[in-house]
């Protein structure tokens, strides 16, 4: 059993299995399901993720107030022109993260990973890499297991709720999970996966949860796009050889503590940050109190 990143890595060393397999074995023991059943459940979840990553790429979806309608389509068109500053791959990943956010805000079907508000990051990274490298779905599901193991540790020892820990706990954790998965898909080592987790969380430490009008649209969609990129750049930092001088479990604890220090206005209440700007309040008022 693992209860921390350290004990997960120790189990991995002890068994000599790939990390995804250790997570799989532990999940089978916890849930009492067979390998085939678990694999099938992961396959279904990835199916939902992939569908939401593609769905808004060529059509604008209506959302409450239409605050983000069409952002994925616009960005996907830009990505396919190929002259974006971040390159066509990263821009395509951003477009897919935006698509998931748009699907979520339009009351479409998504897979929370770890939350609905951050549902675009892991799918964008996994589908993006599957497209680029022509990876099999089984390989992607290994990445999903790696992400799930990291997410489970953070859920246990910290939080993934924006109301408790701010956006760093939702989109930041999603980036940490996706970063570790990306390292696996690049055939990196367990140490590199753990380093990617550290860098993703360091890069996002303190990010507040401040949705305009309390809606899961702005700045949530932008954060899904930026944290998908954070996942990939953190994976690259780790794969290139950078090592975190702070152990992952301590980085996770720091994120949790920072979340606790955030005032309530900056934890999903719609009362601080971007939500509390003059324009943000105007939008909220127009949507919910139009008669006044």
């Amino acid at each position: 059993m693992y209860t921390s990143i350290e004990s997960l890595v120790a189990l991995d060393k002890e068994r000599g299995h790939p990390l995804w397999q250790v997570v799989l074995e532990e999940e089978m023991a916890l849930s009492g399901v067979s390998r085939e059943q678990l694999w099938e459940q992961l396959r279904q979840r990835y199916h939902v993720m992939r569908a939401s990553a593609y769905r808004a790429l060529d059509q604008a979806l209506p959302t409450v107030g239409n605050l983000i309608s069409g952002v994925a389509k616009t960005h996907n068109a830009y990505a396919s022109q190929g002259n974006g500053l971040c390159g066509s791959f990263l821009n395509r990943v951003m477009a897919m993260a935006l698509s998931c956010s748009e699907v979520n805000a339009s009351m479409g079907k998504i897979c929370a990973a770890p939350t609905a508000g951050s549902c675009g990051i892991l799918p964008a990274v996994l589908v993006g890499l599957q497209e680029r490298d022509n990876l099999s779905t089984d390989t992607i599901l290994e990445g999903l297991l790696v992400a799930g193991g990291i997410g489970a540790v953070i859920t246990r020892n910290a939080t993934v709720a924006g109301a408790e820990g701010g956006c760093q706990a939702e989109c930041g954790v999603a980036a940490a999970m996706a970063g570790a998965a990306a390292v696996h898909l690049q055939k990196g080592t367990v140490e590199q996966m753990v380093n990617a987790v550290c860098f993703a969380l360091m890069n996002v430490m303190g990010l507040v949860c401040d949705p305009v009008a309390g809606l899961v649209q702005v700045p949530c969609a932008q954060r899904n796009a930026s944290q998908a990129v954070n996942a990939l750049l953190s994976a690259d930092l780790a794969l290139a050889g950078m090592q975190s001088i702070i152990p992952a479990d301590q980085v996770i604890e720091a994120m949790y503590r920072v979340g606790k220090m955030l005032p309530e206005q900056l934890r999903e209440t719609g009362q601080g940050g971007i939500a509390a700007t003059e324009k943000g309040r105007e939008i909220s008022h127009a949507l919910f109190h139009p008669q006044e």
Partner: protein
Amino acid sequence: MEISILDVLGPVMIGPSSSHTAGAAKLARAARQIVGNPFFHVKFALHGSFAETYRGHGTDQALVAGVLGLREDDERLRESFELARKAGLGFSFTRTDLGDVHQNTVQMTFYLGESGDLATAPTRQIRGSSLGGGRILITRIDSFDTEITLEAPTILVMQKDLPGVISSVTAVLAHSGVNIGTMRVSRTARGKLACCVLEIDSPVDRSIIEKIRAMPNILHAQAIAMEEEETQYVHQH
């Protein structure tokens, strides 16, 4: 690790919010199962954050979808108002203050029958909260305070509050090889009516429920299994 990766990589749901959309739909679907009988109108009284933000998160559409029996991952959720109209189901929303309860709480009043007059129709009242991540808690059934998560198959029994009634229910379950995980009893007043909630390890056969119903001093018994329920919605008429 006591956290399942399937809880981290999920739930699969209709957006935008696990607490305000998915949880709301599940609460209403649970209430529908508890009510069990046909109804022609539902009044939703929304408390706290539910009352403040329900329109932005589709909480209203989710609640109506739930009482129609739609699951939390059914994309017809956003068309639930139209589906309700086609099914002849009336619904209305009010904001309320239920006092010191969870921020995301709704009180649902079901008006029973195929059709009728709101002023005279018999009613059932279910109250529950959406706890986040799609998890729910039913906190009141009519006049009984209770705590039901419906994360496990659940048996609900209404009985006269007399010595030996509960043990006779558990004896039936033991005899049928059903293992009880948790049990909670609440009552209106000593010696009157009691509500017994039993969480069990696996869904029970219908015949076991029939056996409990046939016992003396039992007014009502039903099994609720959120996962096994049919995924289609059912017309009221």
